[in-house]
Structure formats: structure tokens, C-alpha cells
């Protein structure tokens, strides 16, 4: 069930220092990679079958091969804007083993011929950014990053760049705009970053965990890595389990492990007497699953087949002490707050959805509002500039679909309460509209 690769030495004291990291075998993979041809490194990455760990799950080797060959300036950007609710795996990686990420960046940059690289880290991760910066200084001093790395002909400049607190800046093109000093708004695609990314140059963008896995792949060989996990979801995955579980935290698991084992055996399941009501398998933007889905294998394809996604590997467990309406409101509010406002369906759809759920809570809704809410979600999905709109519409849509009876009961209960509980005339939009006041 658990297999330790990224977390092999994670609790080693002072692993953040170059000395300890090297003693545990660190930077051996860099030496090995730099002795190979870049194409051979890329071939290893391809052979490993590693899929992006940031959320989309796109094969990393293939994405890297989209970068045009040639002499133009190319960029490698590490997306460390870990802001998907429920996700906190990159934080632990950067905090405890920053050199793994730096080494992974160096190897990947070498493979794609990028000489400039940025780690875009979310502003709230101050501690992690400080640790990364200290580690980077050490690595530079030791010649592991910078001019002519390890005596090879390859040079790499690497910077740590702190974001200013916006979920949307985890979207790759918004991240690039933010990195360029602009308002972090997603760009229209195409052109894709592989062709025109940072400063119009070809750019590869990868998640922290993806890049931190690279040294392990080089160390053990791509084919060997591909033996872990399932055929299409190879390797290990860091899973952040949170919510109503007794042992929340990060766990490294082999992809394909049954979900029940993750939630119950690793994280201890819900508190005694409680049962799982619903769970998000891949962060708050993934459509929810119910307790009937607990036996699904936790890998990319099984999750996709179940109509949801593995996403960033953040499992949020909600037990039966919670109302689905509260969960929906929490999710919708988050996305309304984080919508950049550039495209219409996301800007207005998230805003409208929050207002509708709030009305449900105030007791003024009717079951007809559920149909409108569901149709608003349908109207958002697939119509937006980036995936933020979908990130709200998909889970909300799935909640209405799977928990409709509970929504209806809730609406009815709140209507009664609102009518019976108060003699004060309510000044609410609906009543104003109906001429009540």
C-alpha cells in the first residue's frame, strides 16, 4: 500500500542541508543525468510514464517533448502555487527536502534545454520559500545550479519567486502573467506555453511533486519506475488526506491502492460513530464521490471513469455530521472569491451560485431553485477561458445530482423555520420582488 520514494528520508533530521541530502545519496541523479544526452534523459522520463502531479495528470515526458528544439531561450517553471483546497503535499516536500526539487529542476531543465528556471511559490508559504532560498544558495555555492553545473557544459539560472496570494495563479498561464509582473489572469490558449510561454519563449511548467520525482526516476531508471503502480498510472503519489478523518496528513502511496485503504487504514477514517457521507478524491475542484465509491482503486483512470478526477491527490473526507449544503456553500464561496473575473461564465456563475445557496440557507428557496442551480453549473462547464469555472461547477453539479433529496429536505426545513420562527417581515429580494414590502 505505502511505498516510499519521495518520502523515503523525509523525516531525516537536517535533510534540508546539502550535507545531509548528499549523504543520503542526493545529487547522484544529477551527475548521472548530466553524463547522459538530454534526449536520453527525456527518454527515461517518457519510459517512466510519470503523469503530472499538479492536477491534470498529463504525461510529463510528452509535455516536455512539446518544446521546440533549437537555440531560443527556453524556460522551466516550477508551479509551487499549491492552492487547491485540501492539498498540502508540496509544502511538506519543499519544507523537508528542498534539494530534491532543485535537483529535479536541474535534471528536467537539462533534458529540455532550458537555461532559466523559476520556482513560483505561493506567498503564504513563507517558511518554505525561505528554506528553498537557503537550499538554493547552498546548491549554487556547490556548483549544482548556476554556471556549468558539475563541470558540464550546461548552465541553469534558478530563481524563487513568491506569489501574492491568488488561487488563479496556479493556473499555468496566469502564473506566467504573474511572473512577468502583470495581473495574474489566464491567457487564451493556443498559443500553449510550450510554444509561447514566459516572455513569449517556449516554457515547460511542472508541479513540485512532478519535478521532485524526476531524480528518483533517473536514479532507478524509467522502466523500473513504471513497474510501480498501474499500467497507466505509474509510480507513487503523495496524497493529502484531510477533513473528517482521525489521522489527517500526507501519505505516499502506490497508485492503484483502493481508496478505502487510504481513508480508513492510513488516515484512520471518520471519528467513531460517524460514516463517510461524501469525499473529494482530488481537491475541492473534483466532483464528489460517496461512500459507495470507497472501493474504487485510487488511480487516474479509475477516478476518471467514476466521473471525477484524481487531481492533485487531495482527499477531503466529509462525514455524516455535515450538511451537503454547507459543503457546497464553502466550495462555491471559495471559487467566487478566487475567480479572476476575466471570463463571463466563471465570474457571474460562481457569484450567482453563491447567492443561490445563501438563499437556500435563508429559507427562501424552492426546489425549483435546484434546477436553476444545476443548469447554471451546466452553463459554466466547458464555456470558460480556463478551468476555474469548471472547478466550481463540477463539484457543485455533482453534489446536487448525488444529494438532491438532502438538498430538498434542507430547503423544506429552512422554509418552515423561516416562516414559523420569525414574525418580523423579512426584507429579502424575493419578497421585495413579490411585493411583500
Amino acid at each position, binding site marked *: 500500500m505505502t511505498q516510499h520514494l519521495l518520502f523515503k528520508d523525509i523525516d531525516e533530521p537536517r535533510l534540508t542541508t546539502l550535507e545531509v541530502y548528499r549523504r543520503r545519496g542526493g545529487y547522484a541523479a544529477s551527475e548521472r543525468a548530466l553524463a547522459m544526452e538530454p534526449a536520453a534523459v527525456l527518454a527515461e522520463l517518457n519510459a517512466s510514464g510519470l503523469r503530472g502531479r499538479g492536477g491534470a495528470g498529463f504525461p510529463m515526458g510528452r509535455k516536455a517533448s512539446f518544446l521546440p528544439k533549437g537555440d531560443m531561450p527556453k524556460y522551466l517553471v516550477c508551479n509551487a502555487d499549491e492552492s487547491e483546497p485540501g492539498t498540502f503535499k508540496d509544502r511538506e516536500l519543499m519544507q523537508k527536502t528542498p534539494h530534491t526539487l532543485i535537483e529535479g529542476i536541474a535534471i528536467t531543465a537539462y533534458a529540455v534545454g532550458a537555461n532559466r528556471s523559476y520556482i513560483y511559490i505561493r506567498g503564504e508559504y513563507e517558511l518554505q520559500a525561505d528554506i528553498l532560498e537557503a537550499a538554493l544558495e547552498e546548491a549554487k555555492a556547490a556548483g549544482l545550479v548556476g554556471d556549468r553545473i558539475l563541470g558540464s557544459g550546461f548552465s541553469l539560472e534558478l530563481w524563487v519567486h513568491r506569489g501574492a496570494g491568488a488561487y488563479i495563479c496556479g493556473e499555468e498561464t496566469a502564473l506566467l502573467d504573474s511572473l512577468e509582473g502583470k495581473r495574474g489572469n489566464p491567457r487564451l490558449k493556443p498559443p500553449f506555453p510550450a510554444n509561447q510561454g514566459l516572455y513569449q519563449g517556449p516554457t515547460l511548467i511542472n508541479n513540485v511533486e512532478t519535478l521532485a520525482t524526476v531524480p528518483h526516476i533517473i536514479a532507478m531508471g524509467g522502466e523500473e519506475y513504471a513497474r510501480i503502480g498501474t499500467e497507466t498510472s505509474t509510480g507513487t503519489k503523495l496524497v493529502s488526506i484531510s477533513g473528517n478523518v482521525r489521522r489527517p496528513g500526507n501519505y505516499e502511496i502506490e497508485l492503484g491502492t483502493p481508496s478505502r485503504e487510504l481513508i480508513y487504514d492510513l488516515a484512520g477514517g471518520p471519528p467513531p460513530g460517524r460514516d463517510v457521507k461524501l469525499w473529494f478524491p482530488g481537491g475541492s475542484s473534483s466532483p464528489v464521490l460517496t461512500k459507495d465509491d470507497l472501493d474504487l482503486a485510487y488511480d487516474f483512470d479509475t477516478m476518471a471513469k467514476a466521473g471525477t478526477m484524481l487531481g492533485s491527490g487531495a482527499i477531503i473526507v466529509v462525514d455524516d455530521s455535515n450538511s451537503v449544503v454547507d459543503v457546497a456553500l464553502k466550495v462555491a464561496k471559495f471559487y467566487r472569491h478566487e475567480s479572476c473575473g476575466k471570463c463571463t461564465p466563471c465570474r*457571474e456563475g460562481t457569484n450567482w451560485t453563491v447567492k443561490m445557496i445563501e438563499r437556500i440557507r435563508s429559507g427562501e428557496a424552492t426546489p425549483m431553485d435546484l434546477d436553476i442551480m444545476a443548469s447554471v453549473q451546466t*452553463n459554466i462547464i466547458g464555456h470558460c477561458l480556463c478551468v476555474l469555472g469548471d472547478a466550481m461547477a463540477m463539484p457543485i453539479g455533482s453534489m446536487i445530482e448525488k444529494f438532491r433529496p438532502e438538498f430538498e429536505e434542507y430547503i423544506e426545513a429552512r422554509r418552515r423555520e423561516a416562516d414559523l420562527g420569525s414574525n418580523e417581515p423579512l426584507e429579502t429580494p424575493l419578497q421585495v420582488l413579490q411585493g411583500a414590502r
Partner: protein
Amino acid sequence: MPRPELEEITFSIDGREVAAPANMMLVDAAKRGDVEIPVFCYEPKLGQPVGACRMCLVEVEGIPKLQTACSTPVKDGMVVHTQTERVRDAQAAVVEFLLVNHPLDCPVCDKGGECPLQDISFGWGGGRSRFIEPKRHFQKPLELSPLVAIDRERCILCYRCVRFSQEVAEDYQLILQERGADTYVATFDGHPYVAPFSGNITELCPVGALTSRPYRFRARPWDIEQSGSVCTLCPSQCNVSFTVRDERVLRVLGRDNEGVDDGWLCDKGRFAYQAVHADERVTRPMVRDGGVLREVSWERALSEAASGLGRAKGRVGAVAGGQTTNEEGFLLQRLMREALESPNVDSSPFGSRPRADLVALANPRLQATVEDIEFAHTVLVLDCEPIDDAPILDLRIRKGVRRQRTKLAVATSRPSALDPNAIASHRFAPGGGADFARALSRGDESVREFGDALRAAGEEIVIIVGERSASAAVELAEALGLADVGGAGIIEIPAQTNGRGLREAGCVPGSGPGYAEAPDGLSTPQIAGALDAGELTSAYLLHVDPLRDLPGSGAWAVGLERATTVVAHAAFLTDGVREHATVVFPAEGHPEKEGTIVHPDGRLQRVRPAIAHQGENRPEWQVLAELSARLGVETGVMTAGMAFQQLVAAVPFYAGLTLDVIGGRGVRWPERAQATGLPEAPAPAAAPAARDVAPSNGHLRLGTFRSIWASVEVEASPALKFLTARQRAELSPDDAQRLGLRDGERVEVGVNGTRVRATVALRHDAPPGTVFLEEGVAEDAANVLSGEPLVEVKRS
């Protein structure tokens, strides 16, 4: 640079096979098949599509998700559907989303009736609202600037205005604040959005969020008529459309013409129409009686003018101002040369150049077009400031640099607004433009670096040059071999709107219509001197107030004082007219005028009347023809069209032109076969070397410029009054420090007892030892100092 090539492809839209250029955006290509795809954020004038509003979602076979037609280039064999249920649902959904926060205040909204959001809601929306929550609220309306009101509740956040500010005007003032549904358009710190082109955002806004304050609540779309013409307030000659209600101009809109203005207008062109209806405007003829100007009948004014001019036969000098049409200029030179036997007729404030230079400058092989600015390898801005002299060209230069990677080189004495976009900037002493150009032509060592930068990108070089250095620019163009390169050449920005047309109509001493040889006469500055010396006794001022518009206003004041008859065509009683004119004919405003003018790139354009004449105004061609007749020369001109026919007959390179041919978009004569009618250039006269006087004794060199806002129309327009140019002394921080002056301090600048008051304005790139003053401002204009090489700057 190569223009984009258009390869025709065919694609299918809603079952129809349609031909369109490859890679055209689907929205535009669909129009070829009579299919309209609704859009809000898409506006090709603003550059690359942003795909923000999501209104234009369509289905493209082979692509699972709906695509935004504004950003999908059309490919051969593409199959597109815009009428499937899926597309209709998606578009209706977007309309519904847009209306979520849009107030339904159409009955009191200025945009109502001409509003894309209304039209699209009607055409593509679901027809009913399911949204019953509270809408978002903002205070409304707010002043975004004195010219533009912003109603944030109506805003649909299409990004157009922000993109205009950021990517077209590049004033970087408008931004989006906050995010998500809380987003709103604003300036960074809430300061008013004041910029030369700010009014364009009212026209770009697809809803009633940004409205023109002068137009607010003036009319509904069914009250008004649109009337196309050309703005004559500066040499850009932008194509405009006047919004008219009951014989009053209420608004000016752009009339897209890629060959002229690319669809933009400056704020002067957009709002100065108010001057036409200003109370202080002259709308009846006047005659000086007992020392003051009194309104009189046309008969009295015409007979006074005719008798006064008749007595001065042979001793009259005439100057034509920039808003004079070709026809008026043509009739003026006939009046002068034929009826009054005075060949002293000029149209340049500095005095026209020798005929040889003018003919060389008109050489069709050296003419660049406005579009060439965009696609050139390199643009050289020489001795002019486009933002002041021809504002719309400033936008065109920026567009080329931003979108076509055109290189820009700037050589001026005064720091230019375009410096930040330039690969090379050079500063010379005021008046040193011609010398600099000649040094470049010779390849002098001192300017080698600049010359290398100018030539580095390629042979297609466009020189945009101010009037005073234009002749030297011809030499430079020849040295660079531009005559043989397509897409290269010169655009001379004349000092006045129709400077080029007036030259071609013969308002130049020694050069008749079509640059034909003519008896030599006095130039503008010489006329002032001759009036003072008594050699001339009468002056004819056609749309020009020498005290306001011409350099050397001191000499003019003395000269006009001595003249016995001064006939002026004027719209306002500015100083020179009020104090010196003996007869004043009311000048037509540009929305009243009928005639033709010539764009700096050789494009003849029609100025067409949008409103009836105000007050007792008459067409000025009629006044000139009547005066000619009373003075013994029957011109035979009975309509504006007949004046145009006479002009065409007299100018060989206009041969065959009719008003119909010129039409609404104009015709560039250098492109026509008849351009060969240009006479052979006589041997050029030797160019006088400019004298550069070194600053000394705490004196500074004097440079002058005329701001875009320094015009009587700006002062007379209530909306623009706040922009009225005031005298400022621009100098470098080093000089200021040496003289102990601070930014914003009041100073007196002058020499030999002639002084003007000014406010110090520090400019970092100003050349050392030089101070720049404004000409043409209402008070303390630098015109009194022109010609003085050195001045003193003192704290007042």
C-alpha cells in the same frame, strides 16, 4: 516589411461553403457567409483577441469543446455550426450571465437604442431572466474624467477600455481593480483618466458603462442623424461622423479609415465640436466702426472689404490658415494674383520654402502612406512631436512597434512621448533638425551610431518629419535610397491642417496651383515686415490670427497696426482679429464646410457639411468669389463643386478627379497615373545653414512647440476648457538646478525686455542648455519670442 498575405480558403458554416482568407478569425470569416456571430470583447483594432466574454462560442467539427470564434483562425475545410442547439444554449447562457449584474435601466441609459448588449440580448438571449438575487451595486455615475462618465453597474467587464489604454494609447492608466464579480474598471489611485485619446473608450464600450459627459442625455438614437466628414483641427485629418440633432452637432464619432486614422480620434477632434455652437462665435459679418467691430450686413461688409482691398491693389499680403480648404485657397490666390495684382500669398507660418523644394517633396516616389508607418522596417520621427502635431499618427507608430515589431528612431530637440518605444533617440539644438538630417545623409561620424540603428532593420524606412526639416528629409530619403523602395518614403506633417493642400492649390509665393511657376511674392514673415515698412498697406487673413498662430507676433502686431485694411475670416475674435481687423467675415466651422483638403500623405478628402450654417454664416468660397467679382475678376464659381472643378483644371496631377471619385475614403493622388502631372523639379536652392548659438551667461537656447491643446477651439469648448494649454517652460533638471529653479515654479522667460510668464516643467531627457516654450496659447504665447536664439529664465 511584408504585409500579411491573404490566401483564400473555403470552409463551411451552417452548411454553406464560404471563401475567406486563411487564418482570418472565424467571427470575421463568418460574415463572408452572411452569418453573424455575436461578440463583446472582440475588437480587432485592439490587437490580439482575448476570448474573455465567451459570447462567440461556436461548434467546430473535430473539436470537442465549443470554441470562441473570435480567437479561432479559419482553416481550409473547417466545418462550423452556429445554429445548433448546443451553440444556442451556450450563447443564451452567456447572455444570461452578462445580465446577472447588468441593471435594466435602458430607458435612462445613453446607450439605449444603439447598444450591442441590447441587440445581442434580443437576438441571442433566452428572453427571460431567472436571476432574482440582488445585483451588485456601485455609486453611479462617477466621473472617470471631466469627459467620460463611468457607470460600473452597467459594465460587463469586456476589457475593451483597459486594453485600449494599455495596448493602443499606451497611457497605462486604466486598470481592473479587485477580481471576480467584484472587478471594476478604474485608474490605479482613482485619479481622473485624462489622456489625449481617452474619449475613444466611450465609443469602444459595448454597453452604457462609459459615456461621453458632453453627450449625456442630449439625444436618443432615433432623434439623431449621422453625417460623415473629416476633422480639420489638425493635419491628421481623421475621418469622423457628426451626430446631428436639429442642426446642432452633439457628438463626434470615428469613421474607420485604415488609410487615415485606423478608427481612433483624439479628444480634441472628439469634443471640440462644441466650439461650433459657442456663444462667442462670430456668426455675422463685422466692420470696424469708431474703433470697435460692429455687426453689419453682408452687403456692407463685402463692399467695405472690396473698396479697402481695391485701394490697396498691388500692396496686399494674404496668409491662409490651416483650416482653409483647397477651394478657398485656390480662390484666395486667384483673388490675390488676378484681382489684386499682389502675388504675396502664403500658407506656411514659417514662410514657404522655395518652389524647387516643394516639388521635390511632392515627388510621388518619395511618398509614404499612413499604412506604411505600421509596416515599415524602421520609422524615423524627425523634428516633430506626433502627439502634438498629428496625434493619430502617434497611435499608428505605437501600433507598428507593438504589433509588427517596427523599429522606431526618434530625432528631435524636445523630448518625445515616443522615446520609450524607440531603439535610438537623439536630441539636437532647437532648429537643428535640418542639419541633423544632412549629417545623417552624409554619414557623418558624429551621427554614425544613430544612422546604423536607422538602417539596421531593413530598407523600408518611413521618415515622419516636421515642416521645418522637410527639405533636408528629402535629401536624407534620397541618400537612403527610399525612392526605389516600396513601403518607404516621407510623410511631412505640415504646421497646419491643410498645409499640403494649400501648397498644391497655389497658396505659396512664387508657386501657383499645381506647383506651376508664378511671379515671386512675399512669404508670411516678409508680409509682416512689409506691412511695417509700408510696402504693403493691406492684409487678408484667411483663418489665421497672426498674433496667435504665427511666429514673430511682435512684428505682426506692429505691421497690422499700420495696415489700413485688414480683412479676416475668423470664427472667434482672438486678439489679432479683435484689435486689428477692419472687416471680419464669419468663418465656417468644420461641420458647416464644404470642400476638399489634402492629407499629409497626399490623400484628397472631402469635407462635407453636416449642419446648416449657423447665424448668418455664408460659405467662404462664396465670399472669396464675390470679392473677386467686385474687384473685377469674375471667377464663375457658383457652387463649391465648381470651385473644385476649377482647382482640378488648374492642378495637372489632380486631373480627372471628381468629388465622386474622392468619395468617403479619399484618394491619394500620388498613387494615380496622373501623378506624372507634377512639374519637373527646378534646381534646388542652397539650403541656409542653421546657426547654433551656444548657451552662455546663464542664457538658454529657446525651442518652441505647439501643444495639441493650444487652439481656440479647445478654449471655446466647455468640455475641453480644462485642458486649455498654459505656458510652461520645459527644461532639464540639471539646468533647473543650476538656475535654482524647481518644478512648478513660476518664471519669466525672455530677452531684451520681451518676456513671457511660464511654469517650470522639468523633463528628464531635455537637451542641456535649452528651454522649450509653447506657441499658440492664449496668454503668454512664445510667438513673441520666436527667432530669438537665446533667452533668460528668471524666477518671477
